[in-house]
Structures are given as structure tokens and as C-alpha cells.
């Protein structure tokens, strides 16, 4: 029997949905811009079956991919589970067979050796194919029209890491993808394999190196010359896994470390820089300035995730789980391993930030992310209370002037990750801000489309789903030229 009643967090708006859906010609408030042709692809997770352990990470939720397909002003919605071997095994057994996040020692013996990945993090359109990404395994190829799962993909056998990041970066000047796997040779290995893959999907380059300590390498940034790879206080060990713990624990004594890796260099050319304890889970962008590398990201003061608790037994500290847009400057002429850091905006924000991807590796002006504004109205009597814990705004942060423009989603809404969709041939920041809002009063999800240059004017369109869409981790806009859409 499926029973979520013991999970206090699986109630109300947040109750599991667990169904697959097709909505043809979705209801729209406003007018869908005619120049949006393609798909907003979301990937996230839901529990097919409740987790085996109460303290497991939500990163173990089963993957669910969904698309808002835009064509000539009409939007169709489709949602499907990512049907991994794990999903199929659980469904056959009618229960959760897999244990804690990235810890196979906690699994039911019947699934020993099976790919335990859940494919719930980021969708990727590359080389004419659609993939789901999860950093503990290879990408899974997905049929972009049916959203049915095809299976793991290794770029014609040339991608040799056992894992593939959820945050590859595509260089807009060449179309090449810079991607990597960490714990590349298996659980708890220090190996990172860094790849350059041509826009036709052919692996062009592989660089192997080791990190100073096994840590989460969730996101990177690229410049024209370098790859910036942050690692920080999440630690792991085989002993930890054998003790039945979740993969990561937080070690506050670990310095934040950042590798500056030449894109055409060797492992010996890598510079490691060290700084105070931080958590750089997601990045915005980076660029070269002479012999300096300028890197910007929404960086947490400390551990953002209570499900990866401190290893010293202390309590997780929510006051340090705040992200601020910061700039880190790495001087490659320096003789020491220090770097400088500036907080660019004082407002704490969601670390799920985006830029205009056409400006990756280049000087740029705008960053976009969600944040909570407690000065905005929140109609608790309609929405229920989360004690002010909502992301009710998308902000456009002007890195040149320090000014912020904001879009407010509504008094019963909370916004998931923002996406920026450039207008074809438009200048930087000319386009749309897009993302899904949870409407706690109407118990439904609404895809927001706002003009990125006129955020204060509100949205130009809302695509209404008559249900709660599965929660998203990351979403990406895919232009119709990128995939063989029907």
C-alpha cells in the first residue's frame, strides 16, 4: 500500500501528485508572445514511493520531466516520469527498494548493482537530443515529443566518466559543451573527468585530474580560457556510507576551494585557490580580464541543506543558509592561493540564478533570480501560511549599476527557478522571464511569462495548469530549432 500520511511535508499543496498528464491547448491568461516557439522543459522530482529513511535527501525523489510546448501561440503541457531502472524496479516491487542518497549500502539487496540514479535535476538539449541530468550517473536520453525514457547515453562510448554533471556549460561562441563528471571512477573517488564536446556530440577532449578532497562539484563556470570549478564543505567517505549515512555531511573546517582549469591545458596547469567556508552550489557567469578570472555566483554563507547535516553533530543553522550574489576575483599572476570576494547585492536571493546564456564567458550586465519580498502582500487567509517563506518575486539584477527590477507573482504565489528566454537577435536582457509559480490558494501551477525589460508591468501571459505540477529543480527554454519537435 502506498502511504504518505506519515510524511509531514507531503501535505496540502505539497502532497505527492504522481500522475502523468497531457493538457492540450492550455488555458492562458493574457497572450502568449507569438515569437516563443519551442518548449519550456522542466525536470524535478516526486516520490513514487515514500523514502526508506525519514532523513533521506529530497534529491532521491524520482525524476519527472515535463514540457510546456509553445507553437504559434498555443501551449500544450506534457508530464512523464523518467523511467529509470530504479523506477521500474520500485514499481515492480510496489515499494521503495533504494536507500539513502548516493549510498548503495542502504539499498535492498535485491537491487545490488542496478543503476540507482533518479534523473531529477536538469534537462539538457544538445546535439539534437534531449537529456535528463543527475550528477551521480550518465545522462538519460529522452524522446522530446513523447517524453518517454530511452536510456543512458555516453556520447558513442567516448565519455568515460561514470557520472555527468547537472550543469554543463555551452560556450555560445563555439557551441561546444564543457562538461564533467566527479567521483568519475566510482563512489568516493577523487577523480574529475573534464570534457569538451563539439556541438555535433563528438567528444573532442578529455582532461583527468583529482580534487583535494571528495566534495560536491555541482556547478561550474567558464570563460574563454578557463573553467572555474568550486568545491566546498560537503564531505564524504566510504566509512560514512558503510555506517548507513547519507552521502554528504558538512565539515565547517573545510575551506572553499576553487580550481581554475585552462580549457586547453593539462592537469599540472590547474591553480587551486582557497577561501573561507562557503557553499557555491550554483553559478552565474565568469570572464577573463587580463590575467584575472572574474567569477560571479549566488553563494551561500554556509551549508544550505539540512539533509546533509554537520559531521560534528551540531544542528544545521538556517541563518547561514542564505545566498548572496557575490563576485570572486582570481589573480593568476598571484603567488599565493588567496582570492578576493565582494558581495554585490545585500538582498539574499535564491541561488537558482540565470543569465542570458548568449553571454556566457563574456562580459555581461544582467543576472536573474527569485527572492522573497516580505513587503509585498501575502494573503494568508487564501494561501495558508508558510511564515513568509515564499519566493514571490523574480529580480533582474543590474551588475553595472547595482539596480534591481522586480516582477511580483501575486499574493498567494511562490516562484520556482527563473529562466531567461532571449528574443531572437535582441540585445542582452531583451526577452522574457519565465518560470512556474505555485498558487497556494487555487492549488494549481501557473507558468509565468513576463517581459524581462518591463518586469514591474507584471506578466504578459500565464499558462494555467488545472493541477499542481511536480516541483521543479531546473528548467530550460529550448528553441524549436534545437530539437526534432513534431
Amino acid at each position, binding site marked *: 500500500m502506498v502511504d504518505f500520511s506519515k510524511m509531514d511535508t507531503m501535505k496540502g499543496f505539497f502532497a505527492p501528485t504522481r500522475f502523468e498528464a497531457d493538457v492540450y491547448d492550455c488555458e492562458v491568461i493574457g497572450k502568449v508572445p507569438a515569437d516563443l516557439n519551442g518548449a519550456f522543459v522542466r525536470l524535478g522530482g516526486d516520490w513514487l514511493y515514500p523514502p526508506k529513511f525519514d532523513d533521506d535527501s529530497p534529491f532521491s525523489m524520482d525524476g519527472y520531466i515535463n514540457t510546456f510546448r509553445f507553437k504559434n501561440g498555443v501551449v500544450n503541457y506534457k508530464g512523464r516520469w523518467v523511467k529509470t531502472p530504479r523506477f521500474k524496479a520500485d514499481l515492480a516491487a510496489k515499494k521503495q527498494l533504494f536507500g539513502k542518497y548516493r549510498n548503495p549500502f542502504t539499498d535492498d539487496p535485491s537491487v545490488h548493482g542496478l543503476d540507482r540514479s533518479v534523473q531529477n535535476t536538469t534537462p539538457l538539449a544538445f546535439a539534437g537530443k534531449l537529456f535528463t541530468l543527475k550528477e551521480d550517473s550518465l545522462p538519460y536520453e529522452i524522446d522530446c515529443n513523447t517524453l518517454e525514457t530511452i536510456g543512458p547515453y555516453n556520447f558513442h562510448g567516448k565519455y568515460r566518466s561514470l557520472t555527468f554533471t547537472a550543469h554543463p556549460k555551452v560556450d555560445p561562441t563555439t557551441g561546444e559543451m564543457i562538461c564533467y563528471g566527479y567521483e568519475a571512477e566510482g563512489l568516493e573517488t577523487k577523480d574529475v573527468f573534464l570534457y569538451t564536446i563539439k556541438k555535433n556530440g563528438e567528444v573532442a577532449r578529455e582532461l583527468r585530474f583529482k580534487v583535494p578532497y571528495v566534495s560536491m562539484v555541482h556547478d561550474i563556470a567558464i570563460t574563454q580560457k578557463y573553467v572555474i570549478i568550486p568545491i566546498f564543505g560537503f564531505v564524504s567517505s566510504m566509512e560514512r556510507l558503510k555506517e548507513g549515512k547519507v552521502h554528504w555531511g558538512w565539515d565547517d573546517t573545510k575551506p572553499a576551494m576553487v580550481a581554475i582549469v585552462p580549457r586547453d591545458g593539462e592537469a599540472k596547469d590547474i591553480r587551486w585557490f582557497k577561501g573561507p567556508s562557503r557553499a557555491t552550489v550554483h553559478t552565474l557567469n565568469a570572464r577573463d580580464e587580463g590575467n584575472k578570472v572574474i567569477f560571479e555566483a549566488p553563494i551561500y554563507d554556509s551549508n544550505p541543506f539540512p539533509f546533509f547535516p554537520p559531521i560534528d553533530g551540531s544542528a544545521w543553522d538556517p541563518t547561514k543558509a542564505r545566498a548572496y550574489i557575490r563576485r570572486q576575483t582570481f589573480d593568476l599572476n598571484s603567488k599565493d592561493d588567496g582570492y578576493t570576494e565582494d558581495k554585490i547585492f545585500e538582498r539574499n536571493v535564491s541561488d537558482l540564478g540565470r543569465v542570458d546564456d548568449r553571454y556566457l564567458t563574456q562580459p555581461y550586465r544582467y543576472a536573474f533570480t527569485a527572492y522573497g519580498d516580505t513587503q509585498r502582500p501575502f494573503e494568508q487567509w*487564501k494561501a*495558508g501560511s508558510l511564515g513568509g517563506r515564499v519566493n514571490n518575486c523574480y529580480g533582474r539584477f543590474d551588475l553595472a549599476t547595482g539596480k534591481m527590477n522586480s516582477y511580483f507573482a501575486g499574493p498567494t504565489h511562490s516562484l520556482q527557478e527563473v529562466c531567461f528566454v532571449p528574443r531572437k537577435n535582441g540585445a542582452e536582457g531583451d526577452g522574457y522571464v519565465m518560470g512556474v509559480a505555485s498558487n497556494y490558494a487555487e492549488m494549481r501551477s501557473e507558468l509565468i511569462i513576463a517581459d524581462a525589460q518591463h518586469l514591474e508591468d507584471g506578466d504578459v501571459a500565464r499558462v494555467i495548469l488545472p493541477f499542481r505540477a511536480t516541483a521543479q529543480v531546473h528548467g530550460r527554454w529550448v528553441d524549436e530549432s534545437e530539437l526534432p519537435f513534431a
Partner: protein
Amino acid sequence: MDANAMRETTKFESGVNFVTRRNFLGLLTAACAAASIPAAKLLGHTADVPFERRPVVAFHMDQLYVDRTGKAVPYRPPAGYRGAEPLAHLSETELRMQYCYL
């Protein structure tokens, strides 16, 4: 509880009775009749002026309809589903254990 009552009221483990809109209005009307108070007054659509009947939007057989006599109980739209409420009591740690990104 008999089958008819079960249709109108759902009893949860917490002991809280969730009363349907129709059942509630019925109970209210009966209670008001016993106390000789017009139910409409309790619903807030009269002032201290003599009761004046106007057309109202009301419920009949779970369907909205316009009652031009004003005799029926006006429909008040629900305030919202309050979908965030079941998680309101969670501490920051408890909430973020499942929702690091809301």
C-alpha cells in the same frame, strides 16, 4: 455514524470535523431558527436595517443558481484552498529537509 451523515461530514484522526458547505448552512439555519435570528444576518449581508430581500447567488443541489426571491442563502466564495497551511507549523529545518527550493 450513518451513511447519510458520513456523506456530509468527514471525521479525521485529529478529531476535527470537516463540515460540508451545504451541511454547515443547514445546521446554521436550524440553529438560527431555534434562536429566532435570521441566518442571513449571521452571514453578514444585513445591517441593522429591516431585512430587505434582493436576488442572490445561492446553491441548489451543489450548483450555483440565481435566486431572484432572495430567500436562499447567498453564496460566499471560498477564501482559497490554503494549500500552504499544512506546512505552516514546520520549523525552518523541518521545511528545508524536503523543500530546499520551494
